[in-house]
């Protein structure tokens, strides 16, 4: 078994930085997040040339018209800063009060969520690895008083993970998740998904998981849809769950705003009533269109440029209707 990898050292660096910020007086913690993220992001961008090249190639290939280095390079740098900010904020979450979070995060169009919750059928929030995503949004909404759970891989070390990742990084990284409702995505059936929604609560699922598992499952569990003009396989799980339990699906994206970031809740997606693969694909396409428009507007905020090695090979330049 590998003892330690380059990525482990990177994650340990972020955990150490977050510990340093946590040691600061509460009044200055939030102020230093942005400058520290910029510094860590720049170091990361310069030190991890292989990943920077991967991100650059993915952006150039998928976004096509960014052929000149002068256009793409600032976005690649901004990508690393955004990832650094996300990791730093995630590691800082246990030390942040609602007041602290409110200084850089706000809820936008929360009325859509309230209206959906009033139907008492549960609500599926479908998001993406975009902006300050995942646990930050979970913790923010939870602190605002919403009952929600997230579906996540939650600290499950991948096959071949190093000793340091298993014994040090993951236990530290996920320790504070005991404050959160996490339904682990283990590949085993999880009834909690159904029970949680039937109790009228909110279930948060990332709709743009592009791991190897997502590529191998057959129709209708994974369907190809058009994203950014490319054909990409996406998991249909959130939409199958919504159809089954008659729960509304509300997309959400964390977008920049003058005070930092806004958790923007979109209107419920008008789900197709058709019990067919084409109906399911129509639901998925509605989400992919929204995601595509956000990524096109804020390309540096999409974490998937670097999360999957070879993203450009997953997003084929072919027709998704086949």
């Amino acid at each position, binding site marked *: 078994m590998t003892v330690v990898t380059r990525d482990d050292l990177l994650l340990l660096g972020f955990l150490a930085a977050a510990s340093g910020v946590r040691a600061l007086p509460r009044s200055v913690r939030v102020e230093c997040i942005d400058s520290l993220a910029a510094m860590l992001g720049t170091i990361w961008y310069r030190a991890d040339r292989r990943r920077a090249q991967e991100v650059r190639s993915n952006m150039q290939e998928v976004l096509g018209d960014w052929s000149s280095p002068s256009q793409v390079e600032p976005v690649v740098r901004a990508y690393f800063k955004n990832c650094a900010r996300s990791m730093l904020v995630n590691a800082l979450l246990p030390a942040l009060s609602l007041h602290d979070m409110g200084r850089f995060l706000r809820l936008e169009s929360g009325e859509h969520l309230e209206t959906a919750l009033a139907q008492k059928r549960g609500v599926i929030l479908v998001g993406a690895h975009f902006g300050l995503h995942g646990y930050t949004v979970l913790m923010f909404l939870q602190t605002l008083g919403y009952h929600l759970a997230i579906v996540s891989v939650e600290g499950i070390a991948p096959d071949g993970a190093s000793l340091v990742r298993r014994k040090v990084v993951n236990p530290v990284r996920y320790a504070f998740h005991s404050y959160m409702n996490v339904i682990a995505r*283990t*590949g*085993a*059936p*999880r*009834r909690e*998904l*159904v029970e949680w929604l039937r109790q009228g609560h909110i279930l948060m699922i990332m709709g743009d998981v592009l791991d190897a598992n997502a590529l*191998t*499952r*057959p*129709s*209708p*569990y994974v369907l190809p849809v058009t994203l950014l003009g490319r054909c990409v396989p996406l998991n249909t*799980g959130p939409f*199958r*769950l919504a159809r*089954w339990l008659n729960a509304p699906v509300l997309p959400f994206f964390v977008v920049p705003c003058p005070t930092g970031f806004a958790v923007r809740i979109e209107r419920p997606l008008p789900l197709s009533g058709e*019990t*067919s*693969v084409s*109906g*399911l694909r129509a639901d998925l396409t509605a989400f992919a269109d929204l995601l595509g428009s956000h990524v096109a507007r804020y390309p540096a905020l999409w974490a998937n440029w670097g999360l999957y090695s070879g993203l450009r090979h997953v997003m084929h330049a072919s027709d998704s209707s086949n």
Partner: protein
Amino acid sequence: MASGRTDATAIEDAIGRFIADDLLLGSGGAKLDPQEPLISGGLVDSLALVQLIVFLEEAFQITVRDGEVVPENFQTIRRIAALVAERRSQ
């Protein structure tokens, strides 16, 4: 004996129809073979398995315990039908 076989066939048919129509949304092609591997063959994923368990509980008035949700019991339609028959007889 004949009645037992008829019951088992009826259970297999109901499970097969649910998988074909509600889980695979008709994309599975011809009628499913009761011996066809469901999990390793990719015919059900983890969410589909939850749907299938809830269907079994509601359609056959049984309770599937968490400990029974193991691949061996859900590998084929025939195995699932056997589990249903066993739970109904208790």
